[in-house]
């Protein structure tokens, strides 16, 4: 099972953490986003509002990065610290 983490506004709609068995056609971070948008309208709405960054195993990566069931995939809305 892949471990999905959601931060900021996304954590309000998705919770902090979900476990997900990746469907066979979901092999990149971008495909996972498309998948989540398809089955969760709240995620789709939150996603459409701002550019997400993706971290796989705590490293920020391009959306084309391959992912698997042993990965931790974090969804990061725009940062705003300070």
């Amino acid at each position, binding site marked *: 099972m892949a471990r999905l983490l959601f931060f*900021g*506004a996304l954590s309000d709609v998705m919770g902090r953490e979900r476990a997900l068995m990746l469907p066979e056609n979901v092999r990149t971070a971008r495909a996972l986003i498309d998948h989540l948008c398809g089955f969760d309208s709240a995620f789709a709405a939150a996603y459409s509002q*701002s550019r997400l960054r993706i971290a796989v195993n705590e490293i920020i990566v391009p959306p084309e990065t391959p992912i698997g069931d042993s990965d931790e995939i*974090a969804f990061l*809305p*725009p*940062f*705003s*610290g*300070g």
Partner: protein
Amino acid sequence: MILLEPRAFDPYAHLSAFSAEAVGAGAVASFIGVVRGDDGKGVLALFLDYFPGVTEKAITQAAEEARRRWPLVGVRIVHRIGEVKVGEPVVLVAVAAVHRRPALEACDFLMDFLKTEAPFWKKERRKDGDVWIEPRAEDYADRARWDE
């Protein structure tokens, strides 16, 4: 020292300790950010979400980048996480150097980084509900000044 602080902290005590450690520094530049409450938006508090482990690492790398760009004696960054009340300090950036311009510039650089590039997510708790905050266009423009 990079510190994510879940409780109210005293930035002046930090600054004093930091200066005492910064042997040989002639210059200490600092920035303290405080939660404003009187801006007509009815802000009661901030809530700061972060990514444990990853946030600390990103800030540490920014401090290393600052040390690569300027000759610095020391850097201390304290950033609140969780609930922060109006009037409380939310961030302290302190930079020590032999001369003043490196200290001032690195402080400016690190604040621009924290506003747009550090994994924090800021929610304003307002009288009429919670609102997640994104950086202003200005913050991204400020950050872009440092692109190499």
